[in-house]
């Protein structure tokens, strides 16, 4: 009976705990996002010596410089500029891209699905291969298989992705002619295929255009595998570490004593417990791929946000660069927090406290 009576304040305490947690979460999200905008503001307005001169050129008459300065609000105090910048950014207004003359947000909306598709394929490949490899390495610790997985992972950590991309293009595209390049689709399909979501693989399968699906697959497989290799290096290493941790626990001994098959113990009991931190790792590597695609997209002429940012960089289009930075940064923050949240959801030990 005492337990029931005690449960009421306990529940109230838990609700309050949840509210505090949520409040802390909201503050974290808000300050991180504010920090992101503060840094991009700093990069865009403070670091360049004179943004006005960068636009009108250094031969413009003084009256023009003055007028542009006023139009752009550069005569206002810095904090006021930041406030205006904040208001615009929160409304999704990152300015006009000098290169494409479209609003930056519209440009990004067009190119983002390409990056999303590439990173998704990369993560699927990386997790699909990395988790089993890590498990095998942990189970056969110290064996040749373990050493091979370790070396494969180490090379993945050490190789410049753009270089590996160039070499694989040379081999699989130029010499063997197995894959297609550049971009996401052959020119022949570029004008006949109208995407729905922008994820070409999905769109083509949805509309049952199998030839388009095959073509999109031939384009994405090489950059996707490359990114997949990178997340494989990280995921297999972490899987191995988590699995070693689980395999040393007492419940494994109990399962063995019960007479369960080794396969069942490893893949069902141990991996299931290791999967809680693994989900976080996979989410983080997904976020990392969204970022890591900058170099890959440049090598493969993949029209995603990475290529958009580097193209804008080369044309000194700061609005587009900073807009892209904000969008990738926001996605990054969101995935980070989401993985944190997932961890709490999946691990019962973090729930009751």
């Amino acid at each position: 009976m005492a337990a029931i009576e005690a449960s009421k304040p306990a529940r109230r305490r838990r609700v309050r705990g949840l509210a505090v947690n949520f409040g802390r979460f909201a503050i974290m999200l808000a300050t991180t996002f504010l920090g992101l905008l503060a840094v991009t503001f700093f990069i865009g307005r403070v670091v360049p010596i004179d943004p006005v001169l960068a636009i009108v050129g250094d031969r413009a008459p003084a009256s023009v410089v003055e007028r542009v300065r006023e139009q752009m609000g550069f005569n206002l105090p810095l904090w006021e500029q930041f406030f205006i910048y904040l208001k615009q950014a929160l409304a999704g207004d990152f300015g006009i891209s000098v290169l494409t003359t479209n609003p930056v947000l519209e440009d990004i909306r067009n190119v983002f699905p390409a990056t999303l598709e590439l990173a998704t394929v990369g993560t699927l490949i990386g997790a699909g291969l990395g988790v089993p490899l890590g498990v095998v390495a942990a189970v056969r610790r110290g064996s040749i298989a373990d050493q091979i997985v370790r070396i494969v992972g180490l090379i993945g950590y050490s190789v410049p992705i753009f270089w590996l991309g160039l070499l694989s293009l040379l081999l699989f595209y130029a010499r063997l002619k197995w894959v297609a390049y550049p971009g996401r689709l052959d020119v022949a399909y570029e004008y006949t295929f109208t995407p729905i979501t922008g994820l070409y693989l999905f769109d083509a399968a949805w509309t049952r255009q199998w030839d388009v699906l095959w073509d999109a697959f031939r384009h994405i497989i090489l950059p996707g595998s490359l990114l997949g290799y990178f997340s494989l290096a990280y995921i297999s290493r972490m899987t191995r570490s988590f699995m070693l941790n689980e395999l040393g626990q007492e419940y494994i001994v109990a399962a063995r004593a019960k007479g369960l098959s080794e396969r069942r113990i490893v893949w069902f009991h141990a991996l299931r417990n290791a999967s809680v931190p693994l989900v976080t790792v996979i989410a983080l590597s997904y976020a990392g791929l969204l970022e890591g695609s900058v170099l890959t997209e440049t090598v493969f002429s993949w029209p995603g946000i990475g290529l958009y940012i580097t193209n804008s960089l080369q044309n000194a289009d700061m609005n587009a660069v900073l807009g892209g930075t904000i969008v990738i940064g926001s996605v990054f923050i969101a995935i980070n927090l989401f993985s944190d949240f997932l961890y709490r959801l999946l691990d019962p030990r973090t729930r009751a406290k």
Partner: protein
Amino acid sequence: MTDPSSPVPPMASNESWRDWLLTAEPHSRHQARLGRAYVTWRRFSENRLAVTGLLIIVALVLIAAFADLLAPHSATIGNLAGARLLPPGSPGFLLGTDDQGRDILSRLLIGSRITLAVVALVAIIAAPVGLLIGTVSGFAGGYVDAVLMRITDIFLAFPKLILALAFVAALGPGIENAVIAIALTSWPPYARLARAETLGVRNSDYISAVRLMGASPARIVIRHIMPMCLSSLIVRVTLDMAGIILTAAGLGFLGLGAQPPMPEWGTMIASGRRFILDQWWVATMPGIAILIVSLGFNLLGDGLRDALDPREAGR
């Protein structure tokens, strides 16, 4: 040194160096430290991969130091008339030449200086900043901790390469700006690490003893907390060096790092990209150099971690 023990000759006649180093009862602080280093070295040198990594890094440092003597040709002035795009193994040009008729081997050798300089500069800038912020944050606690860690988290939440790209875009391309940009993005993990280590020791008895003796907070942090953070920080920095090299090379590849006549490896790959189909070696050789060096740093870092932190060994 305020050494309470009586000085003992480092080696008694019937004792070997090994026994002296491994003794359970060292007679001086000096001996204890040397013994500790010896044990660490033995654990490190058992690991063949780690020693390979160390050898690669030592070779890199030696090559960078004597690059002028080792390089058979000029790194920047080529022979446009007679030596354009020669394949590897051509007489006098072991790794071939690039489109300007420059010897790729010489460029790689001289370029090792840039790689080493970038890594060293980033480590020298980012590690102390992270160490300072982390230890102060962990030791002070309260508002100082909350504010500093919030700032750290903000930088940690940023995608590194993108932030470095944006910084270089604003500062203008160049190797110095690339170093600044990479340093700006790499200190937060060190701050986190140093803070965690600080929280581990801040309430221990020796800190209380030092405080009782009247040491100022600054002295406690600098003399008594920072040394405790060093070993894990060194491991982390070594492991990060491969990432720094790759980021610098990536910036060079995008045309934002070192600028063309400089023999920076990433920039060399970018300039070899145009010839990749017919003259594969122009872009391939610098990539191999980057791979070897960052592999060396990774192996070394792994070995150091296993040697300095036995808890993590074999993970």
